[in-house]
């Protein structure tokens, strides 16, 4: 079966650029792009939800079916 990818939404008006989601993603999916977090490699995402769980600012959502 083909792997379904989530949609990762980063809400820039809430993101404070703390790096937490980038550093603690186990699959190196995210990166900092300028001030904000951004998706670098969605293909590698395992939908572990760590980034969403840890973000102190409600700024990242991992939307799965």
């Amino acid at each position: 079966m083909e792997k379904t990818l989530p949609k990762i939404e980063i809400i820039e008006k809430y993101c404070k650029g703390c790096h937490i989601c980038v550093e603690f993603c186990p699959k190196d999916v995210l990166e900092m792009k300028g001030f904000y977090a951004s998706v670098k490699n969605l293909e590698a995402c395992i939908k572990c939800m760590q980034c969403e769980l840890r973000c102190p600012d409600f700024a990242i959502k991992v939307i799965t079916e």
Partner: protein
Amino acid sequence: MAFDYEKYLRPGKLPHIWCPGCGHGIVMKGLIRAMDTLKLDMKNTAIVSGIGCASRLPGYIDCCTLHTAHGRAAAFATGVKMAKPEMNVILCGGDGDGTAIGGNHFIHACRRNIDMTYIIMNNYIYGMTGGQFSPCTPTGHKASTTPYGNPDPGFDIAKLAIGAGATFVARGTAFHANQIDKLIVEAIQHKGFSVVEILDDCPTTYGRRNKYKSVIEMMNRLKEVAVPVKAAEKMTAEQLVGKVLTGVLYKEESKPEYTAEYAKVIERAKAAK
């Protein structure tokens, strides 16, 4: 599926006031997930705080909230619980608010064993006012008022709570985000005074002064020092040096709860007429 935090937040309040990487936001999310797990009725739930960055938390959550005077959350919350014993009463605040100016209210709420849950965000410092040392600042660490290192020994909040009579005491950290809601759920379910200490980070006023290069370094320190109580049982005293126990540290179910005891007083007074 993404967790719907917004459902519990007052509209238009984000972004919140906390600095980049401040753990208070992580704790607030844990509390929201706990409220969701327990399906708490927002109209029957009060969150009460004192003053400080941590104490700003209730302002974001769309239930009954009270932002009171510095150190006085326990006093106001006790008033709410006595007037409405059926209400879920949750207190929150920082280490400074709870153990310095509010230390007396804290120990007496523990002593009474009144059915409330106290979430104390311990970032070892007075964050809001620019980083003065608190009773939880570790010995030797730097604050704006201890630039040459703090000579005082720090409080152990959990031991203080147990000694004063709290009947549920737990500890987690802002790094162990997925444990926060589970500890709060157990604390709210417990009938009696419950204390949940969350070891937190204040990158702005504590991290900088104490040579943490980044929020990530502060998070990694929390990861390294925390040892779950179960794991600690198999460790030697030597291995536990510099570690902090996490999980449910104390639970006692036989001690009478205060509002129930007070209801009996009311009955006795009525019968005495």
